[in-house]
């Protein structure tokens, strides 16, 4: 005769996920309330899966009405507290990678009989535009029936006459992989509430387990009347830029493909499938070539060839006949590709107004030729010399992803994991589609030097269709009335300069007329972006430079209360003459590292020592 929703003496009577998106910056609060209905103390656990790109900004525990807030501390300081707790046999938890997009935050706490506990986790994320959409993603998987279960999302937008975004185009709600509801919502404020009753949650009429197990995804794009949009609040500004209607810049692509023995079987088949589909989408004014590497390096053609129908047909035949063999010579393959692109430019074999890209796919570490990662990086950086970007695709788990990531970042590209799964070919194709449509190259966002400071990255080698450039900074003089922002770049046919005239007085007036709560989200967005970019830069720096970047990122993480790879969050509960300590921090991308770094400890003085369950990926 246990009340509804009571499992093992614990009733989780409320879970509320509250998400607010203001101009791409998402603020999410997950609150769970539980009560121990048993006669003895029981463990209550709280699991949240949050996007890898998000920063935790707060975690609080409230037990019997007393709240224990989280404090962000430097990782080393937090670690000492954690180690002390663990050495005394305390409960430990982890934040670690979970699946492709998420990491899992887990904490358990013992609750005395009849006591209530509230967990509240806050995290923030800058939603990035991919293929014309922003996506806010939540995993919905409660472990038991919950009386009050609710996901509320609110997209707030500072609508103003200057043409800020004003509409969420569509919301998509997908639960259990089956139900799909699309709701069109018109802003200034869009709101979606998902609130299943207990009966709707049940997997069957008399079951006590929950049916809810799915993805809550909100996808939207902003109504973009003009290519640029600058928002300023409290001396901080953010500049979004995404022009439309421009023709695609022809591209010269070298695919550098690993055909070593480890690619044998499904991985190679998926790679071929993806390449064949990519070849169908290549435009006729593009140029391409394939470089295959194992122990040796072979090329499809001696130099880049135009993607004429005849050449595409030949390329397809070539791809179909790729055979796996030998070891992994990343260094020579990349250098060959880079040289080929440079030579094509020098010898005017490719159109003058075109852009070059190297896409490398590998499933393992270099083990023949030059195999020292740092030397390969050095060689590649020197060879590319900033002329075009390198994108690295790491296929599967058995590779040094940090090396690929670092090498791509220092050559103006990025790395992407390709998960070994049934859809690996689609992942590969999806990546190509992201970079297949450059609309501008050599993009520089310029502001008046004397008026702006602490600018985030403002130069980009490419602007890709469906993406968005985001630059944030601070005004030197908060009371200034006006500034100008120029976005310069090269288009497929001409050189372009987009100018934004920012009238701060008009913006402030419009802001006051609107009934929006702005808070300090632009300042936090600036801090988020700055920390993210400092951490990326840090990956390829050494010595004093690395120390400086670390110090800057740490200072901002502490100031803005972000749990980043440099900080941890500590929750201390003074009780029974002993401190109870919980620590949360952020795993890196290396899965092997995250599985051995405990990041949450919570002292339990009246329970036998135990380790909470942590799900891996």
């Amino acid at each position, binding site marked *: 005769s246990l009340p509804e929703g009571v499992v093992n003496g614990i009733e989780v009577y409320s879970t509320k996920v509250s998400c607010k998106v203001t101009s791409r910056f998402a603020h999410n609060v997950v609150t769970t309330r539980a009560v121990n209905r048993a006669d003895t103390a029981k463990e209550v656990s709280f699991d949240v899966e949050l996007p890898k790109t998000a920063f935790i900004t707060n975690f609080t525990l409230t037990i019997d009405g007393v709240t224990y807030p989280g404090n962000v501390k430097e990782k080393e300081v937090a670690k000492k507290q954690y180690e002390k707790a663990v050495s005394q046999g305390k409960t430990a938890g982890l934040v670690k990678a979970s699946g492709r997009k998420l990491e899992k935050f887990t904490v358990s706490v013992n609750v005395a009989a009849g006591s209530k506990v509230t967990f509240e986790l806050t995290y923030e994320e800058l939603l990035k535009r991919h293929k014309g959409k922003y996506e806010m993603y939540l995993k919905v998987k409660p472990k038991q029936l919950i009386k009050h279960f609710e996901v509320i999302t609110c997209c707030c937008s500072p609508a103003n006459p200057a043409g800020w975004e004003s509409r969420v185009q569509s919301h998509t709600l997908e639960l259990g992989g089956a139900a799909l509801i699309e709701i069109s919502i018109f802003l200034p404020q869009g709101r979606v509430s998902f609130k299943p009753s207990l009966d709707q949650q049940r997997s069957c009429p008399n079951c006590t387990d929950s049916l809810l197990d799915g993805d809550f995804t909100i996808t939207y794009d902003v109504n973009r009347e003009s*290519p640029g949009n600058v928002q300023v609040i409290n001396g901080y500004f953010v500049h979004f830029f995404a022009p439309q209607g421009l*023709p695609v810049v022809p591209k010269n692509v070298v695919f550098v493909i690993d055909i070593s023995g480890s690619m044998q079987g499904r991985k190679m088949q998926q790679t071929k499938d993806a390449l064949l589909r990519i070849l169908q989408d290549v435009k006729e004014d593009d140029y391409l070539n394939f470089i295959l590497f194992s122990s040796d390096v072979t090329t499809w053609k001696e130099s880049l060839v135009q993607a004429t129908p005849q050449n595409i047909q030949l390329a397809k035949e070539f791809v179909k006949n790729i055979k796996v063999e030998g070891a992994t010579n990343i260094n020579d393959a990349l250098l060959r590709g880079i040289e080929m692109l440079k030579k094509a430019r020098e010898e005017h074999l490719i159109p003058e107004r075109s852009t070059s890209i190297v896409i490398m796919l590998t499933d393992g570490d270099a083990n023949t030729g030059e195999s020292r990662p740092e030397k390969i990086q050095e060689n590649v950086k020197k060879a590319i010399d900033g002329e075009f970007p390198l994108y690295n695709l790491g296929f599967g788990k058995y590779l040094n992803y940090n090396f690929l990531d670092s090498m791509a970042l220092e050559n103006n590209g990025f790395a992407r994991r390709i998960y070994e799964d049934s859809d690996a070919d689609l992942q590969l194709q999806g990546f190509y589609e992201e970079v297949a449509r450059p609309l501008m190259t050599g993009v520089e966002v310029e502001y008046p030097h004397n008026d702006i400071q602490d600018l985030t990255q403002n130069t980009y080698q490419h602007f890709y269709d469906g993406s968005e450039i985001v630059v944030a900074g601070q005004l030197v003089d908060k009371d200034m009335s006006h500034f100008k922002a120029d976005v310069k770049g090269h288009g497929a*046919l001409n*050189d*372009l300069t987009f100018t934004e005239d920012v009238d701060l007085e008009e913006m402030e007036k419009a802001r006051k007329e609107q009934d929006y709560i702005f808070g300090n989200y632009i300042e936090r967005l600036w801090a988020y972006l700055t920390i993210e970019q400092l951490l990326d830069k840090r990956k390829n720096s050494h010595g004093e430079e690395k120390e400086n970047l670390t110090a800057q990122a740490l200072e901002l993480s502490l100031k803005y209360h972000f749990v980043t790879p440099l900080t941890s969050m500590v929750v201390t509960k003074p009780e029974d003459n002993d401190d109870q300590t919980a620590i949360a921090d952020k795993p890196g991308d290396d899965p092997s590292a995250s599985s051995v770094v405990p990041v949450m400890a919570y002292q339990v003085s009246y329970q036998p020592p135990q380790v909470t369950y942590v799900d891996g990926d």
Partner: protein
Amino acid sequence: PHFIIQVPEKDDAICFNIDEDPGTVLRLIQDPVTGLTVNGQIIGDKAGSPDSKARKTYFGKLGIANTHVSSRIEVTPEKITLWNGDTPSTFSWLDTVTLTQDGLSVKINKKKNMVISFGDGVTFVVILHEVWKKQPAHHDFLGFYVVEGHRMSAQTHGLLGQFFHPFDYEVFDIHPGSDPTKPDATMLVKNHRLTVTRGSQKDYRKDASIGRKVSCWFVHNNGQGLIDGDHRDYIVPALF
């Protein structure tokens, strides 16, 4: 649409209207030497009055082309499309953007105007005239100004282009007309003797809403006698 021909030599101006059905495309400039062509398509009021005398007409679409380099610019009050061969680039009047390529520079000034320069010596300005969205009668429309044309050849023609070459006229016998504020006169131009009326039009280059008053001698009947041939000779089948 109103046409205004400024004649600096006389420190004066001549103006005329062309009244044609909405949808009609008129040749404004055609220069076979530089390859430049400008055509304009007429739009009418929202109500679409059948009485052509009461009807107001404007330019709703302009087509500017340089056939020598296969570039075209189509301008409407909604958007601006640049074509290089078959490849379009689209811009909105909400953009402030400058684009440059060999021999062409275009600057769009957000919700105001666009300046199109073909090298040195040929510059056009297109003005965006926005009306109140709920205005019952009128559409947004465009104005077209030639601010520099000295590199256009002597063979340039069209409703505007024919006046790029020096021409002479004489106005005399100024006398009261049917409207006491607007005297009539006789104009001798291109071997025609025309009755003209003193009036005024506006130059909106500096301010698209108020404009600057320009006094001019108004030539009646679709500029008949002033323009070469008949105004219908300038009707072309398509914008490009």
